[in-house]
């Protein structure tokens, strides 16, 4: 299957290390969907790790498994020196206070009946921090840091704000506990282009100001490139490739990564001048995944071996930090889907 193994994990410096995560959901007729199949990755303190993949790749399941919301069926998650999956009760809650999340839909992730001040104060209240006056102080200050005037909008409710403002409120809510890790699941996908740029810049600024580490999940390869230090590519519950951003975009080694990149419409007009090789077929049903490498049914480089044997993730020589799970990785000078 496209990508098991732990060769790419760093020895030290990881704020979060997830190993061999498996998450299975029940489907109709007693069948099971493996949404996350033996995925390992780590996030170094201070970096932004981007995760890209299409629908059904398991990227959101991964984010939730890391936060134990819900916990994966098997695997291990070490966060800030603690075992995330063994922790229970107060210990687990205190770990979760150090990892906060920003969701895709800014409106539905905020309680419509609550005022902005109360929404942003909620994590402090749940964590039992400070007096009401101290909490209010932290909330106003944090709202200011994300570019909102709490005195002015604090008494409004989410539906009275724009999508971009709601996403700023979500970010403020994630920041009030001063977490170490911010998990962003498609945080700009519901926003218009002009507002999207505002929120991306804000995330970069808050990351620097609050010394955050970030896990950034998106289906948009341009957005992920703009914000990430390293990027992991997922396909059907498996990790295909993980590499420093520039290395991945300049010279993708996994045929799936190459296909993805070649599929993104670019701002350079090329109508009728250059036909990139079309991706083959569509993602198979997660109920019926291909044997061996899961991408082989759409892969231009697939051989018999890909059907028999699941590729293990391994280092690419000469490009530090670049790992790929493929029997026939493309060469460095090939950056299109036509990789042999």
């Amino acid at each position, binding site marked *: 299957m496209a990508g098991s193994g732990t060769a790419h994990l760093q020895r030290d410096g990881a704020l979060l290390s997830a190993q061999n995560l498996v998450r299975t959901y029940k489907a109709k007729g007693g069948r099971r969907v493996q949404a996350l199949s033996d995925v390992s990755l780590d996030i170094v303190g201070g970096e932004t790790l981007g995760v890209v993949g*299409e*629908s059904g790749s398991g990227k959101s399941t991964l984010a939730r498994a890391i936060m134990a919301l819900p916990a994966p069926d098997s695997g291990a998650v070490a966060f800030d020196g603690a075992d995330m999956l063994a922790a229970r009760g107060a210990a687990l809650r205190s770990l979760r206070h150090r990892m906060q999340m920003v969701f895709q839909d800014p409106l539905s992730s905020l309680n419509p009946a609550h005022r902005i001040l109360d929404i942003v104060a909620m994590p402090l209240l749940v964590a039992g921090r400070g007096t009401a006056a101290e909490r209010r102080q932290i909330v106003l200050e944090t709202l200011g840091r994300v570019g909102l005037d709490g005195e002015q909008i604090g008494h409004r409710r989410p539906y009275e704000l*724009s999508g*971009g403002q709601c996403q700023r409120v979500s970010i403020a809510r994630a920041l009030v506990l001063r977490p170490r890790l911010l998990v962003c699941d498609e945080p700009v996908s519901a926003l*218009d*282009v*002009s*507002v*999207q*740029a*505002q929120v*991306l*810049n804000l995330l*970069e600024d808050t990351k620097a100001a609050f010394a955050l580490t970030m896990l950034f999940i998106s*289906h*948009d*390869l*341009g*957005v992920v*490139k*703009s*914000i*990430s*230090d390293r990027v992991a590519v997922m396909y059907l519950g498996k990790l295909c490739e993980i590499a420093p*951003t*520039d290395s991945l*975009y300049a010279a993708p080694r996994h045929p799936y990564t190459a*296909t*993805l*990149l*070649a*599929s*993104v*419409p*670019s*701002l*350079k*007009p*090329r*109508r*009728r001048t250059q*036909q*990139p090789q*079309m*991706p083959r077929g*569509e*993602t198979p049903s997660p109920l019926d995944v291909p044997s061996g490498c899961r991408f082989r049914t759409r892969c231009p480089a697939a051989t018999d071996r890909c059907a028999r044997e699941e590729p293990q993730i391994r280092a690419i020589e000469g490009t530090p930090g670049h790992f790929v799970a493929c029997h026939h990785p493309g060469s460095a000078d090939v950056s299109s889907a036509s990789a042999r």
Partner: protein
Amino acid sequence: MTTPLLEVDDLQTHFHLPHGTLRAVDGVSFTLDAGRTLGIVGESGSGKSVLARSIIGLLPMAQARRAGGRVLFAGRDLRQLSESQMRQVRGRQIAMIFQDPLTSLNPVMTVGRQIVQVLRQHTDLSTAAAKTRAVELLNEVGIPDPKQRAGEYAHRMSGGMRQRIVIAIALACNPRLLIADEPTTALDVTVQAQILDLLRRLQDRHAMALILITHNLGVVAEMCDDVAVMYAGRIVEQAPVGDILERPRMRYTHALLQSVPDIDTPSHARLPVIPGQPPNLIAPPVGCRFAPRCGFRQDRCEGEVPPQREAGAHHRFACFNPAPEH
């Protein structure tokens, strides 16, 4: 000079709401020649979808009013046609496809029957001939095993497959104009590439004009001959695609292009942003509607609507203080 296939002249579509009149499309003019592709880009609320629906007379709400303007299609003003005349134009001469392929398809009718229905409605094919033609159409849009698939229901198909079915239905009567409203927005990027490629090939084969409505500037760059940029109910700039992407003049177009994180932009590059939000279309700004968010506004931008100015043969824009020509 030949007459264009479609000529939209000062089109206005308003919605009468309890708290005022919303000017969703407010004085839009453009022309489209046979076989060409026009991209209409804009953010949510810019009026691009209402514009498309105004052209084919399918307005989304009872409160919608045709407030003025003309839509000349092959010389006829579509706004003057009766509903039954309009039904003859829709489907046969102008077809439209929407963002969500699942809601466009009938869930309780096989996809084959849906195509047969369209063919029977608009052509004089017999049922047997229409069935054969339906399978041909499914084959043409790249559905594997088309004969068997014709007997299946839409819910058994993937998103990409459904959009192919919708395209097959739209093309059933060889329309002269296809309007595609965000046809790939709900699809994964690899499937989007396939659907765009399909549209391109079918358009060439059928010599069909295409209006492609999208918020994705990359899709515009890949697909379109010409582009119209909409902001707050108006077209603020229109030009051949190369001019829009490389020599935008109107300040909004310029800022919009800069704010897109493209896969060719270096990582961690600071994205230039457009401050603020698009205006409320019930009480829009008096002058240029982009003025409140524009870093280059002058006094008159706030009081006067900038007229369309020419910049080269097919390039028009509405701005008092445009970006300089390079």
